[in-house]
């Protein structure tokens, strides 16, 4: 005893091979449902080439562990966004970032937000004067050393200043509310950041590693180096950035992990 292997015509009971629209024996039509049988995914998360965002650390209202499947071509995240909303995070602009597909690539684009989009640094990343980065709960900006203006006044009086020490660049901590916090001028070519024994220390910040990251002048250019920290170092993107599986993105207080199905 065997089961018929294909569709069986309801008029004449003949076997109809798959893909045929009419029965070869009696000419009766094959129903539309039977013609378009395709295997479906249990869930859309399995669709290849599509990405999802997992909220690792979230907005109070939305919670952690949520995931957003990026099924459309563009996905807006923001305080008043429909697709990826974070309604209680006042650090997010109403329309903050856009996760979009460009061909087969997933890209994140800063939609001109006030506070920007940060991506986790893998090892070492180039950084420039004016760039911002995050370590633990701390936000920093890379600043240039101001020009020295130590000539005498018109009346030949000299300005008394504290002893000057040459410095290649400086790191400025940015406090919530927008004012500057700690300013640290590079002693040699490096500023190291961490919880202890660094140039800038935050003993209270439990999300920092003891030695977390450093900014270093190498030749003419600056580098941001994550020193194998537990929670990572994040740099603010300029414009847009391609994302790949395992990337982490900070939007305001929300940390998102990018998963791309192979």
């Amino acid at each position, binding site marked *: 005893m065997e089961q018929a292997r294909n569709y069986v015509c309801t008029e004449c009971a003949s076997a109809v091979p798959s893909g045929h629209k009419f029965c070869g024996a009696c000419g009766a039509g094959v129903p539309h449902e039977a013609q378009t049988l395709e295997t479906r995914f249990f869930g859309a998360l399995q669709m290849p080439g599509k990405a999802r965002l997992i909220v690792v650390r979230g907005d109070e209202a939305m919670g952690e562990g949520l995931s957003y499947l990026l099924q459309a071509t563009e996905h807006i995240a923001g305080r008043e966004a429909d697709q990826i909303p974070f309604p209680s995070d006042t650090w997010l602009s109403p329309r903050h970032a856009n996760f979009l597909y460009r061909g087969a690539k997933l890209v994140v684009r800063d939609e001109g937000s006030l506070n920007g989009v940060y991506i986790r640094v893998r090892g070492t990343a180039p950084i420039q004067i004016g760039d911002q980065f995050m370590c633990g709960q701390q936000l920093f900006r890379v600043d240039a050393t101001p020009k*020295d203006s*130590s000539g005498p006044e018109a009346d030949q009086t000299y300005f008394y*200043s*504290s002893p000057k020490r040459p410095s290649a660049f400086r790191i400025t901590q940015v406090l919530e509310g927008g004012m500057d916090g*700690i300013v640290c001028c590079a002693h040699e070519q490096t500023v190291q950041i961490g919880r202890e024994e660094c140039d800038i220390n935050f003993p209270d910040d439990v999300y920092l590693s003891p030695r977390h990251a450093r900014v270093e002048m190498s030749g003419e250019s600056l580098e941001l180096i994550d020193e194998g920290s537990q929670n990572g170092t994040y740099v603010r993107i300029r414009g847009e950035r391609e994302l790949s599986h395992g990337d982490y993105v900070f939007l305001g207080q929300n940390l998102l992990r990018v998963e791309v199905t192979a």
Partner: protein
Amino acid sequence: MIVCSRCSKDNQDHYKFCLGCGAELPRLSANAHPISTDTPPGGSSATGRATNASQAQAAQAEASEPELDWDRSPEEARSDSLPAELASLSDQTSPCPHCGAGVPENFRYCHVCGHDLHEHAVGAAAADAPAERVSAPAVAEALQPATVRARLVLIQPDGSEGETFPLSAGPTLIGRSSGGIFANDAYLSPEHAEFRFEDGQLVVKDMESLNGVYIRIEPDVPIELFDGSVFRVGQELLRFDGPRAPEPAPDGTQHMGSPHRGYLGRISLLVGRQTTGNSYPIPPHGIHIGRERGDVVFPEDGYVSGLHCRVHSEVGHVFLTDVGSSNGTFVRVSLESYVPAGTYVLMGQQLFRAEY
């Protein structure tokens, strides 16, 4: 260069104590660098000499005291650094006779203008009944022209007294253009400061000079800091800035940043006319400043004491208190200030003591 016999650290010739271990350095070399007022301006070194004067003096004083300030344990220093005036701060205030600010009853000096309240209280009590008769001859005396009422005594790098400059009862303008001991100081403006007497107290007015007039504050007496106040610790020039924040964006987005722990403001190192170097926000419990101890340290400045001063908050205002430093903490006079007898005044690269 003097090499310390105890720890082998190199010290500059004029140091009295080793920067590495605090051991006393051989005295011979201490006088190797006599002051020369016509040295080309070099910023740090030139002005270092000025402060050195009081260090030398303090060093002499310390020589008779077995206890050096860096030998004290942090607990000791911290416990005695809280001034008695603030320990039992009362809500009772009385108006300052000079500026009218409400001053807590147990303050000796007005925290706004520095007026000596104790002196006023004593004077008021004495002048209570026979006010007319006593004040008449006093006024006549004050009006006598060309009377030398006070003098500025130059304090030399080795701590000894140098030339003196007489101050009459009327206004006396000093600056590079007034010649004498002021002529060769490139850090003095041509017209730098004006001294005069007011109610029997010496007053100094900054004539919008480039580098200002600094007054040494008394140890353990808190002096209020205002937005933009400048003070000097060793060779370091520091500015206090009150808390300032930009407006949030029009769409209601707040500026993101590191946690704001209720900072009282910031202190910044001044390294140019408009430029600052390192800068630190001041948490609500305040900060200590020193060479070796404290939240902000200057390990490379030998004129800063191990623990030098602190910036702290009381009754919603921010204060600076010297915690017994050797060289003192100097506050830049904003516009004008009383100069109590015996006060050290720093102008240009020279240190003076006001005597009257």
